[in-house]
């Protein structure tokens, strides 16, 4: 589960995204969300100057979407709210 430090808040270097970085990630993130499984390296090659910031986001999105997609295939009647026990809107 990782140590206590790992559960702590993100450092500024981890979450200080510029508008350009977000826009560059958006293309990858939305394609991954649609199940297109885009290639991380090919995407980073288009934005070499942003690669350091984009890579962790692309890897996390690819992994997270793949896990959820696989689970939905296995459990079609699965409700995502069961992960939380409550709506995320209530925190």
């Amino acid at each position, binding site marked *: 589960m990782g140590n206590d430090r790992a559960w702590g808040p993100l450092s500024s270097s981890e979450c200080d995204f510029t508008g350009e970085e977000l826009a560059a990630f958006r293309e990858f993130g939305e394609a991954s969300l649609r199940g297109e499984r885009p290639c991380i390296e090919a995407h980073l090659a288009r934005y070499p100057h942003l690669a350091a910031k984009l890579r962790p986001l692309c890897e996390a999105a690819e992994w997270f979407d793949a896990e959820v997609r696989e689970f939905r295939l*296995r459990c079609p009647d699965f409700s995502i709210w069961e*992960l939380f026990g409550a709506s995320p809107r209530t925190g």
Partner: protein
Amino acid sequence: MRTEELEKLSDEDLVRGLESGCDAAEFEERFRILVSRLQPKLVNAARRFTRTYDEAVEAASRVWEKFLAGFKRYDPDRCSVWTWLYAITRYDCFNANRKRAHECECAARFAARDERTDRRTALHAALGRYLERMPAHLRQPLVLHRLEGRSFEEVGAVLGISARQAEYRQAAALAWLRRFAPALREEIRFQTG
């Protein structure tokens, strides 16, 4: 009547005697003769409707039970004893096969449900545990966008923040989650097999 005399009677006459209310010993003897005559044919007939020889023998036993329960309804003028027994056999095997198919279907359904429950529990134990510990302001946009498929404009409207802020928080949530991705990946694989 003596056994030798009973042996000479036709199947129909043996059943007529059962219906007419003979004593217990004669009843038993008449039934024994009927069984000895018709059991091989009955098992062969049941074999057509069953998968194994043992199932056919079981079916024949059930047919004889039904015969004993309902021989008073048998009308020798309408059909032979064998025709009547064959009809009982056919319906009995049909019902048994239908019941067996239903039981198999139910068992498969229960097994599938158990598997789904296991996998759901596994994901809840793994992914859910991480998401629960994620700061709420990051988790909300992540779930609404990546799991519910809402646009950042919709996420922003739900949470009362701008679309840009929603997008920013979703990216930060992924960055937060990435710290645990290797451990979580192993955990889910381990639990779901």
